[in-house]
C-alpha cells in the first residue's frame, strides 16, 4: 500500500473550448508513496496546476482514475488538505476561525468542541502562529497568511497535502523562511505532499522526487528526478553540495534546453 499511496493512472484532460477540444494533459501516470514529497515542475501553462486540481477533485479528468489509499477520488473531499496560492482565507474570520472551519468539518461530528479547538490550537502552534490566533487575515503579512493556509490544510489530518505554488506570491526571503518551515512541518507530521512549483531551487530543496512536465498542449511527464539528498536539509550547506548542484543543473537543463519556450 505504501508503494502506491496516491496513484494517478493514465489521466487525460481535454477541455471543450469554442475552438474545439483542447488537450491539456496526455497520459499522466504517477505513483506517490506514503510520506513522500513530490513536486510538479514545468513552464507556466504546462498543466501542472490542472493536474493538481484533478487530484484536489475540483476538476474531473476526461479519462483515467486517481486513487488515494486505494480509494478512488471522485470529487473534492477533506481527505486531502489543499493550500492555495493566494491563501484563500476568509477575511471575516480570524485565523483561529479559519482553521476551525476546516477542523470542525472533519472532527466536529465525532469529537467534543474543546477537542476540536485543541486541534486548531495545535495546528496554529505548528506553523508558529499561536500568538496570532485572534487576528484577522488583513492584519497579517503575506507569509503569515500562507502559514495559516498550511495550518488549515494540516488541521484536518489529510491523507495527502496538496500545495499549488504555495510560496509563489511571496518575496524571496519570506519564501525561503517558509520553505524551511514546511520542511520542518512535513518532517514532524510525516505528511505525504504533492506540490506544484516553478521554482527550481524550491523543488530540489524540498522534494524526494521532482516530476518534470513537458510543455502543453497535451503535456505529459517528461522525466522524474530522484532527489536523494539526506534530510534534514540545510539550504546554506546545500548551496555548495556537488550532488545538489548537479541535480539543480539537470532540472535547469530540462526546463531551459529540452523544454525551451518559444519567446516565453
Amino acid at each position, binding site marked *: 500500500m505504501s508503494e502506491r499511496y496516491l496513484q494517478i493512472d493514465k489521466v487525460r484532460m481535454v477541455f471543450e473550448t469554442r475552438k474545439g477540444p483542447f488537450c491539456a494533459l496526455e497520459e499522466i501516470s504517477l505513483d506517490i508513496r506514503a510520506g513522500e514529497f513530490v513536486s510538479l515542475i514545468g513552464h507556466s501553462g504546462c498543466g501542472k496546476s490542472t493536474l493538481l486540481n484533478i487530484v484536489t477533485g475540483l476538476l474531473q479528468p476526461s479519462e483515467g482514475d486517481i486513487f488515494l489509499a486505494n480509494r478512488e477520488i471522485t*470529487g*473534492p*473531499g*477533506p481527505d486531502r488538505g489543499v493550500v*492555495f496560492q493566494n491563501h484563500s482565507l476568509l477575511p471575516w*474570520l480570524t485565523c483561529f476561525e479559519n482553521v476551525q*472551519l476546516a477542523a470542525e468539518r472533519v472532527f466536529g461530528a465525532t469529537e467534543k468542541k474543546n477537542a476540536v479547538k485543541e486541534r486548531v490550537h495545535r495546528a496554529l502552534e505548528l506553523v508558529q502562529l499561536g500568538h496570532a490566533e485572534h487576528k484577522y487575515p*488583513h492584519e497579517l503579512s503575506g507569509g503569515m497568511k500562507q502559514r495559516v493556509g498550511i495550518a488549515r490544510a494540516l488541521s*484536518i489530518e489529510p491523507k495527502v497535502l496538496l500545495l499549488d505554488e504555495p510560496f509563489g506570491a511571496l518575496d524571496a526571503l519570506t519564501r525561503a523562511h517558509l520553505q524551511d518551515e514546511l520542511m520542518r512541518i512535513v518532517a514532524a507530521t510525516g505528511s505525504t505532499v504533492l506540490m506544484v512549483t516553478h521554482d527550481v531551487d524550491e523543488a530540489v530543496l524540498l522534494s524526494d522526487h521532482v516530476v518534470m512536465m513537458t510543455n502543453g498542449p497535451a503535456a505529459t511527464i517528461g522525466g522524474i528526478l530522484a532527489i536523494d539528498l539526506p534530510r534534514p536539509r540545510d539550504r546554506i550547506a546545500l548551496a555548495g553540495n556537488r550532488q545538489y548542484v548537479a541535480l539543480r543543473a539537470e532540472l535547469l537543463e530540462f526546463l531551459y534546453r529540452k523544454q525551451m519556450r518559444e519567446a516565453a
Partner: protein
Amino acid sequence: MSARPVIVHTLKAPRVEVGPADASTQLHPAMNQASSAPEKPLYVRTRAPEWLPQVLAPVIGLALFVALWAIIAKVGGRLPDPVSTWHSAVDVFSNPFYRKGPNDQGIGWNVLTSLGRVGIGFGMAALVGIPLGFMLGRFRFLSDMAAPVISILKPVSPLAWLPIGLMVFKAANPAAIYVIFICSLWPMIVNTAVGVRHIPQDYLNVARVLNLSEWTIFRKILFPAVLPYMITGVRLSIGVAWLVIVAAEMLTGGVGIGFWVWDEWNNLNVQHIIIAIFTVGIVGLALEQGMILLARRFSYE
C-alpha cells in the same frame, strides 16, 4: 525612526545659513550634535490644524446658502426669510409632540409616523427582497426568469403604484406602506443578487475542497461575503423610501411629514413648509449616515 531627525536637519540646513551662524548655534545648541540622539525639530512650520478647513468648508457653504436664501427672500418678496423661518422653527420644535385632533399634531408625531411607515414597508421589502436576491444570485435560471420583470418594473415611479394600492387595500395607510415596499424592493433584490454573483471563486473553492454543508457555506461564506452588497442595497432602498414617503403622504393624507407639508400649503404657512423640507432632509441624511456606519462595521478590507 532614526531617519526622522536627519530629514529635519537636511531641511533645516539652508535656513540656518541665512541667519548669522553664530546666533543660530547659540539659539539651537542641538545643531552641533546633529546625527546623535533624536532631538526635537529645530523649527516647526506653524500650520493651521488639519481639521480646520474640513470644518470651515461646510460652515461657509451653509452660510452662503442661507445668505442666498435671504437675498432671494428680500428680492422675491413671497418667500419667508431665514430669520422668520428660524423663529417659526423654534416655535414648532418647542412642542413637537402635541395632539389636537387627527389633523393637527406636532412635527415629532408627523416625522415618527412617516418613519414608522417607511420602517414597515422597508422591513417587509427586506424580508422578501434579500432572500429573493440570494436565490436569483445563486441560480442562473431564476435570474434569467426574473430579469425582464425586474427590468420593466424597476424604473416605474413608485407613485404610479399608489392607485393600485388604494384599490387593493381600500385605505390610505396600507397603500402608502405598500408603495414604500415596492420601491424598496428592487435595490435590495438587485444588490443582493450581484453580491452573490461576485463571491470570489477562491472562497467557493475552499468550501468545495472541504465539502462543507450548504448551511455552513451559507453561514460562513455566502452571507458574510454578500453582506456589504446587501447593506448597499438597504442604503439605496432607505434613501428611495424616504424620498417617496413624502409624496405618497401628500396624496393619501392623515398624519405624516408629507401630509403636514400639504396641510401647511393649504394653510399658506410657507415657513412651515420650509421647516418640513429641512426636517425631511436632515432625517434622510441621518438614515444615510447610519447605514454608512453600519456598512463600515461590516467591511473586511
